[in-house]
């Protein structure tokens, strides 16, 4: 099965279809849907975001043909950055096949014609919702995160004016206090997703709702990590090789999720982030890899190894 799908030819529509006789999406819109002005603005804001790691840069978020809160931020970044030589991968919580990921993927393909892939190693541009692919990223890749709430301090301070001031003065004691209170009450930090991180020792940043497992992998990343919240109109970035430190206390270290020795029931892999799923009506649970493409790869590799062993015998 080819991992990349070619651009489809002009669809052969029945003459009664409303789109019959119209040019393809590719031709009806400018390349990558957004007008050149919008793309230029977003690229400029991105440059600023990369120059000040972790700092939120506001931008004029455009109306997109999907609802706000469904990845419009990530989509705008993807469309502003993508070029004909790119290979696109879109995941939603690790899955390449969820409705959201598939629709975004198809949309981008229709307006650009770039090939799609599920293979992390092949992709040059990856848009993600709430996960980082399991396989390590490399320097020629861009990872675009969809962000629901870009302001990490929103949890402790409702006023945007005040949070901006707090960022300006690097005054993060309120966030620390929140974590302290959490420890006092529950004897551990209970923040699961959206774990606040210090970027480059200066800006407190919301890493989007990725699990702690992935928070630890933001540090010294090979790839450029880009974040965008369409509804909140904010862009921020972590350049490659930047220090990203989750907030933690000397006596309450940052911990990632622990799967207590479970491994994936499909591929047998133990070193990946696992989803716990209920498999039947009796409530029996099992664990499977959250990253479906990675799981598939491991499974095939395992099967090939088995086959090779079989042949040797």
């Amino acid at each position: 099965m080819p991992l990349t799908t070619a651009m489809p030819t002009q669809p052969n529509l029945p003459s009664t279809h409303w789109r019959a006789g119209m040019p393809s999406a590719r031709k009806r819109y400018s390349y990558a849907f957004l007008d050149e002005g919008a793309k230029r603005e977003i690229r400029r804001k991105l440059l600023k975001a990369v120059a000040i790691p972790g700092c939120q840069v506001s931008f004029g978020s455009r109306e997109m043909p999907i609802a706000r809160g469904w990845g419009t931020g990530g989509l705008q970044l993807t469309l502003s950055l993508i070029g004909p030589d790119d290979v696109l991968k879109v995941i939603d919580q690790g899955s390449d096949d969820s409705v959201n990921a598939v629709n975004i993927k198809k949309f981008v393909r229709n307006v650009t014609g770039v090939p799609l892939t599920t293979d992390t190693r092949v992709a040059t541009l990856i848009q993600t919702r709430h996960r980082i692919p399991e396989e390590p990223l490399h320097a020629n890749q861009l990872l675009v995160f969809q962000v629901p709430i870009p302001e990490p301090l929103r949890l402790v301070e409702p006023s945007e004016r005040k949070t901006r001031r707090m960022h300006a003065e690097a005054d993060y004691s309120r966030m620390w206090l929140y974590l302290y209170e959490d420890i006092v009450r529950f004897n551990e930090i209970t923040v699961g997703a959206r774990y606040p991180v210090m970027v480059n020792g200066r800006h407190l940043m919301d890493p989007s709702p990725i699990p702690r497992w992935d928070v630890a992998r933001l540090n010294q990343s090979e790839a450029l990590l880009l974040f965008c919240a369409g509804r909140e109109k904010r862009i921020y970035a972590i350049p490659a090789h930047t220090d990203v430190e989750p907030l933690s206390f000397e006596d309450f270290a940052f911990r990632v999720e622990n799967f207590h020795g479970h491994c994936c029931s499909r591929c047998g892999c133990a070193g990946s982030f696992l989803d716990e799923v209920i498999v039947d009506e009796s409530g029996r649970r099992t664990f499977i890899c959250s990253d479906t493409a990675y799981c598939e790869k491991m499974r095939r590799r395992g099967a090939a190894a088995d086959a090779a062993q079989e042949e040797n015998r």
Partner: protein
Amino acid sequence: MKPILQVSGLTKRYGPGCPECLRRTGALHETNQCPHCRSIIACREITFDLFPGEVLGIVGESGSGKSTVVRLLHFDDEPTQGEFRIKLNGSAGAACNPDPGRNLFALGAFERRQIRNAHMGIVYQNARMGLRLKVSAGGNIAERLLMAGWRHVGQMRQRAAELLIATEVPVLRIDEPPQHFSGGMQQRVQIAKALSTRPAVLLLDEVTTGLDVSVQARVLDLIRSLQQETGVATIVVSHDLGVIRLLTSRTIVMRHGCIVEQGLSDQILEDPQHPYTQLLVNSML
């Protein structure tokens, strides 16, 4: 002995201001509102020194500008004019040790906050201003420690417990939010918070106003003994001459935003010079 804190020409105006403002307000004119542009001159040309280990009182009626002075020193508000210097004996953390020659009002917000966190503690009349009433008592103290860079939960809790013991708050209630506490206890948590980072200067703004007499007495005794133990230079703002007599060695009397008299506290109380001070002393219960 060199002053630890120097204030000179401190003026705060609320309102548009006009050339008439300073000429037509003040103690001589019996008002702090400019008759021309209606601006309020909350305090004007306040100049004083605070010496190490000293307790200085600022006394005056409501609206005399005494709280404004303290809040300007705590960087809660921007002054219209004036200079403010802190001189420490070099020992405190070098990073946030201000240059003794620098006017702190000219610094940026970030640096001012650093200096405030490292060297100043404040206790407000209203606990709502000094505490987060919904955050635990220990957390309130920890917040100041966190600002000063503490990152060890166990050590912070240890320090908070020590301070609560020192301020006579039951340590068992360390994890309770101060909104459940009595007024006197809230003030004591505020004091614990203010002293948590061992500041060089402590600012007390009408700390016992609104408390029962017996609670007042306990809070004042606490402040006095902690002040003696720590030797922290303190500014006490109060309209109550009893508080001034009990706590302070020197006193500034303010009226209509001006200093009308300053001297040793016992001299102010026994041999007041200015008509207003005499009225104040004679009005004592």
